[in-house]
């Protein structure tokens, strides 16, 4: 058998030792690229700390930052799923508003009040699945479908409250909006909103990196027609990711409702989709699909929250906040590109 002999005669492509070392090096490299924006985040934090005369790194302020990042983190996690498949979901802000409205309206009914939280989340899931079905089954472009539902669901959100603010100061589970989980009594505590956000990130990571479905999501994003030919049910994957995005938007709506005790169909969640997308892209996920990680998204969301918090903390005027935010976003990506130039990514 000459062919077998052949493959033996040749030096094995890589010894087990070499392979292990290589894998390790690759892991480190992946970690670096996943945590790509971490240096930017740290620089921002330290900068704000000094400029605000030491007000940034206080327990209270960090709690506020975490809490402010929470809703956007949850939306961005859903958005990460969608963008990994090469799609986009513009409707998360509207879905968030509609879910919050549905939840709050229900919470005012005495018997069913306790159900408001699951109802909120399921409302979001429902809208997400409709988006997904239109995209996956009718093969419509995600941008148009979710732009359509951005508009239509916003209308529904307004209808739900008859265009007024729905308010319920005694909403059940209000603690998730404003309470904190005590880690060490009297010393360290973490807002429930942040706990939820971190859980969402963790679950997303599990799904994306530890399940078959996760690989399928990356595959659909990397090469949809190859995925189809490889036997992956592309339509199911697409419905799943838009469903998840809707679900997380619904959860975000519940979080906002618990935080504000109120919701307004017109105002709530306006242009949240831009913040969520920004977090995802800052986190290194590619618009083309197939490349990216959920940890990057978390860091992206934190950067946005730190930026908003820090600029107010150091007393920058509203106008200049715009200018600086815009420049920092561009600068962060430019820095990242520059940093990666030496490494394996092109």
């Amino acid at each position, binding site marked *: 058998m000459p062919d077998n002999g052949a493959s033996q005669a040749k030096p094995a492509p890589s010894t087990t030792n070499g392979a292990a070392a290589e894998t390790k090096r690759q892991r480190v490299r992946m970690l670096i690229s996943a945590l790509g924006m971490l240096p930017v985040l740290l620089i921002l934090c330290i900068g704000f700390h000094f400029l*605000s005369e030491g*007000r940034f790194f*206080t327990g*209270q*302020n960090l709690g*506020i930052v975490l*809490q*402010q990042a929470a*809703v956007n983190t949850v939306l961005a996690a859903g958005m990460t799923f969608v963008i990994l498949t090469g799609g986009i979901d513009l409707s998360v802000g509207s879905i968030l508003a509609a879910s919050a409205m549905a939840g709050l309206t229900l919470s005012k009914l005495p018997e069913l009040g306790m159900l408001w939280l699951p109802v909120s989340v399921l409302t979001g899931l429902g809208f997400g699945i409709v988006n997904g079905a239109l995209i996956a089954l009718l093969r419509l472009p995600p941008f148009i479908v979710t732009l359509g539902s951005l508009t239509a669901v916003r209308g529904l959100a307004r209808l739900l409250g008859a*265009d*007024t*603010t729905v*308010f319920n*100061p005694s909403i059940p589970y209000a603690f998730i909006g*404003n309470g904190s989980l005590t880690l060490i009594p009297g010393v360290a505590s973490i807002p429930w909103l942040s706990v939820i956000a971190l859980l969402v990130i963790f679950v997303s990571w599990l799904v994306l990196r530890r399940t078959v479905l996760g690989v399928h999501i990356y595959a659909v994003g990397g090469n949809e027609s190859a995925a189809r030919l490889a036997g992956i049910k592309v339509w199911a994957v697409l419905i799943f990711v838009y469903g998840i995005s809707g679900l997380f938007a619904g959860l975000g709506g519940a979080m*906002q409702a618990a*935080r*504000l*005790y*109120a*919701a*307004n169909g*017109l*105002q*709530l*969640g*306006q242009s949240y989709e831009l913040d969520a997308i920004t977090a995802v892209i800052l986190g290194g996920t590619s618009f083309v699909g197939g490349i990216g990680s959920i940890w990057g998204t978390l860091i992206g969301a934190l950067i946005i929250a730190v930026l*908003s*918090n820090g600029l*107010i*903390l150091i*007393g920058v*005027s*509203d*106008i200049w*906040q715009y200018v600086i935010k815009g420049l920092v976003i561009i600068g962060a990506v430019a820095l990242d590109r520059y940093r990666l130039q030496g490494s394996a990514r092109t």
Partner: protein
Amino acid sequence: KELKSIGVSLGSMGNPFFVALSKGAEFEAKKTNPNVKITTVGFEYDLGKQVTQIDNFIAAGVDLILLNPGDPKAIGPAIKKAQAAGIVVVAVDTAAEGADATVTTNNVQAGEISCQYIVDKLGGKGDVVIENGPQVSAVIDRVVGCKNVLSKNPGIKVLSSDQDGKGSREGGLTVAQGYLTRFPKIDAIFAINDPQAIGTDLAARQQNRTGIIITAVDGAPDIEAALKDPQSPQIQASASQDPFFMARRAVQVGVGILNGQKPASTVELLPSKLVTRDNIAEYKGWTSDRSQ
């Protein structure tokens, strides 16, 4: 207690009304303490964003928060949180539940006088359009005031009140173009603010429609110019507010509370005055010198 730093959260900083408000607040605060630190932010009508801003003010350790509440009731919990941190909260332009004090234009009354002008001019008979705007409480109040007056006059028919002119010239122009095509006969249009009124006038001029009475609320600089402009005779009145003074009053009240002086009433309503083409010459406007 000295006023060292103050946080201001207003609707939308691109609106001249809120700019005048913030100038008034700055003026009064600087008068109290020349070294005061003022942070002014716009919440773009997003309640969540406003709550976030209040959190940030708490973290920054301000003494006084001046806010134009995103929702009169729903902002309550956030206000409580600020108060718990020892911060005095004063609401401007819109009342807020639980605030230490509120200083606002009487928007219902503003809507009333603006629409009363229409009723008077029409002699109690005619077809009127209420050109609505974003559903925030000030706008809702104005429309309520307007409807109060119009409904007392059976001869007046309200053709429509469910279109959103977005509070801007462009929105007013677009909505009015639709109205003018849809209704061959319109006698008067009440626009919920000045930019919409001007946009409405532009639409009417484009279509060569004359004889429509356009009134609004605000008394902003651009309506001042329009009321003086012979080319826009259809813009006839605007129920003026005085944001500069309103903010000054709010800061005064707030400083008072900081120093232990409770105001007589938690809500201070500033009456609105109707500016018309006849009395425009006497109108001081938002940008006139306010150092008195």
